[in-house]
């Protein structure tokens, strides 16, 4: 138990929570935007995977991490665009579309990797670039807080910034207003000349954009390479986080952080004598418990009254 505390009560651990949260947060923000527009994008996993590979390949060929990032994000946006095209134009069921995107990404990335590098497993033979980590002046010298908050990967800061940006976008901009109106009452939006399809395109592309950032982080920051199926469920976790955050920006950010913390904790728990298989379930158990507590308290609140007179 002591050794566990030794691991957890360190700035390194707190630091790792933010690091682990970053990809989940990006994707969850993406999921949030598309959900607010009324479309559930379950292709997050696949989009992240494609972006992760695109970042590696493009940075390897251009020898510029930033161009790589741009490529990754564009790739993510493009894949989301394909999904949007089929679901919005041809009315492919969005769930099937998402499943297809995940399938496509899982095979397609390996296939492309193989064509380019002759390797099916990882991109170690490509000299790809990574984006830098940054120390924040002043902050980095504050004890405890400094080592926790400073020195992160630049995309981690991007992700925190993204929370603010997405909040602003959804709640304070015309496009955000339209996205929310389309999600809540598409007929109302349509009736005032807002093109529902256009807004949903935008929202899906934005969700691809953020998932793309998440994917880029995986292969160009968190790690410096691409490997087969390296997203390893983070896209799904992000969807769960968004769902649990009940469609609000702050809620989504907090639940992403919760998932990140639980995941980091499960890594730390490996120092104990508990079978690794069981430790691995911890983040999920924690989530279910959290969700139940939240849901129970919410329904308690709701059950104790009749509909309030004006809310209809």
């Amino acid at each position, binding site marked *: 138990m002591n050794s566990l505390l030794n691991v957890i009560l360190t700035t390194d651990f707190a630091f790792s929570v933010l690091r682990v949260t970053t990809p989940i947060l990006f994707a969850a923000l993406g999921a949030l935007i598309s959900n607010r527009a009324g479309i559930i994008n379950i292709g997050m996993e696949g989009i992240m995977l494609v972006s992760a590979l695109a970042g590696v390949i493009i940075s390897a060929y251009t020898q510029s991490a930033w161009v790589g990032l741009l490529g990754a994000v564009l790739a993510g946006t493009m894949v989301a665009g394909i999904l949007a095209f089929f679901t919005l134009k041809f009315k492919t069921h969005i769930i099937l579309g998402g499943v297809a995107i995940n399938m496509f990404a899982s095979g397609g990335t390996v296939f492309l990797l193989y064509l380019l590098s002759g390797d099916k497993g990882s991109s170690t033979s490509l000299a790809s670039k990574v984006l830098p980590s940054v120390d924040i002046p002043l902050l980095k010298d504050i004890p405890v807080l400094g080592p926790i908050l400073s020195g992160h990967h630049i995309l981690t800061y991007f992700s925190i910034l993204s929370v603010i940006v997405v909040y602003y976008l959804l709640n304070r901009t015309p496009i955000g207003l339209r996205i929310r109106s389309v999600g*809540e009452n598409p007929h109302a939006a349509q009736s005032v000349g807002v093109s529902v399809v256009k807004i949903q395109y935008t929202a899906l592309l934005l969700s691809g954009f953020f998932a793309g950032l998440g994917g880029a982080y995986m292969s160009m920051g968190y790690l410096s390479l691409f490997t087969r199926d390296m997203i390893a469920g983070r896209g799904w976790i992000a969807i769960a986080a968004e769902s649990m955050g009940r469609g609000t920006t702050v809620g989504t950010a907090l639940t992403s952080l919760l998932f990140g913390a639980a995941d980091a904790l499960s890594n730390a728990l490996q120092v104990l004598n508990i079978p690794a298989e069981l430790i691995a379930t911890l983040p999920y158990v924690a989530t279910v418990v959290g969700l139940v507590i939240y849901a129970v308290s919410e329904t308690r609140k709701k059950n*104790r009254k009749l509909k309030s*007179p004006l809310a209809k």
Partner: protein
Amino acid sequence: MSKALLEMRGITKVYPNGVVANKDVHFSLQEGEIHALAGENGAGKSTLMKIMFGMEEPSEGGIYIRGEQVKLQSAQDAIDRGIGMVHQHFMLVPSFTVAENMVLGMEPRKGLGFSAAEAIRMTEETARKYNLAVNPKAKVEDLTVGMKQKVEILKALLRGARILILDEPTAVLTPQESEELFRELKQLREQGHTIVFISHKLKEVKAICDRITIMRSGRSEGVFQTSDVSEQEISRLMVGRDVVLKYDKTTPAFSKPVLTVEGLSVHDAQGKALLANIDFTVRGGQIVGIAGVEGNGQTQLIEALTGGLKGVSSSGTVKVKDTDIRSSDILEIRNLGVSYIPEDRMRQGAAGDASISDNLISTRYRSRDMNKGLFLNGSKIAALASSLVEEFKVRCSGPTQPIGMLSGGNMQKVVVARECSTSPELLIAEQPTRGVDIGAAQFIHQKLLELRSDDCAILLVSADLNEILEISDSLLVMYEGQIVAYFEDPSAVSEEELGLYMLGINKQDRPKHGRTVNHV
């Protein structure tokens, strides 16, 4: 006749599910007129107007503005040409404020962001200009229907609509609110606006419209000067037969009390009274009407009677026959012989994607004659469904059609058919004829009266004063969660008088309406 401002020629509309909503319809608008569009439920009025507003694409036909053909591919195209529409169902985003709803699609900006202050200013300005007061900062979900209606009209006006389409705007308004709306419409006409007015209330049509186009089964039956045709004639053209506008009510023969409410009070979480000290009784063979402006506790009262009190702290008693139902759920209440026509047919009254026949049996599939143990009796269900469809004249391709494809009125007929055909002892009918054409409304009224003569107790909540005065044997008025008036003989009450109670200006003292309980 001067050249038409807007003309629709040879419009045919086939929905993807194969429903032919409009068939070679011609429709034309003169500048500065109020033009009524009338027709039965499902006649294709809304569809025609949606086409005019660019929200639906015609399968065939053209739209001409001042003789020039235009292609309207989205509502935006229509808005750009000065067409505005207030839809049959509200087109508002509930969680948004009034101002946000007003400017949606034409948001004022401040830098990159949305300027809420400017939106509020625009809303206030338009409201002032057209003399329609609204609170721009209020959330739409908190507004009364009358308020929502105003927001809808302002929305159209803000967008510079010169042609304003109003699809059944008065279905949910009180007489006072309707009166106000008519004043405003006339004022708009003075200012040069052209208005299309859809309504099932022919009195209104006669009162404010210049011309009328009548539709039947997707076709236009012709255009008339309103002054040239009587209500009778209009309804004959709409329905294809004479419609009786007065009912022969048998003299009431009340039996024992079926629903007894005594001293019922319910408070919300903040301790505010939602229902305060409600007393009344409904007897077998009696129709008790509840009038009131929406949002004055009728919804809560009905909810309380349909299982909503379970798990909620309340005082007083609510009895169906001899059973206290305060801790019963809706199933237990229904098992006591209670039927319920909910006001929101889309949300509670019907399952849109399910078939008409599935919708018809939802309250009786448990009964022995509909099943053989666990298995449903398919042939009996089919027989029941087709007989009900026939009896209630539901316009559909057959009982297996999804109910969601029906027009509002026909959907309502299905709901009424279900609830009235189980020989209930108590029927709670909430807005049973909202948005229903006169033919169908009359039919529904007759059904209620038939149940009444079969000794059923009926509690009728309606915003349609005409209906309530016509049908009820006794009448309650609710205001702010209380019963403020009780009339033993509604036929002696005028709409205006009723309106004063509904708006809280008049109030009877307790002993008088306390009589409800003691009345024999």
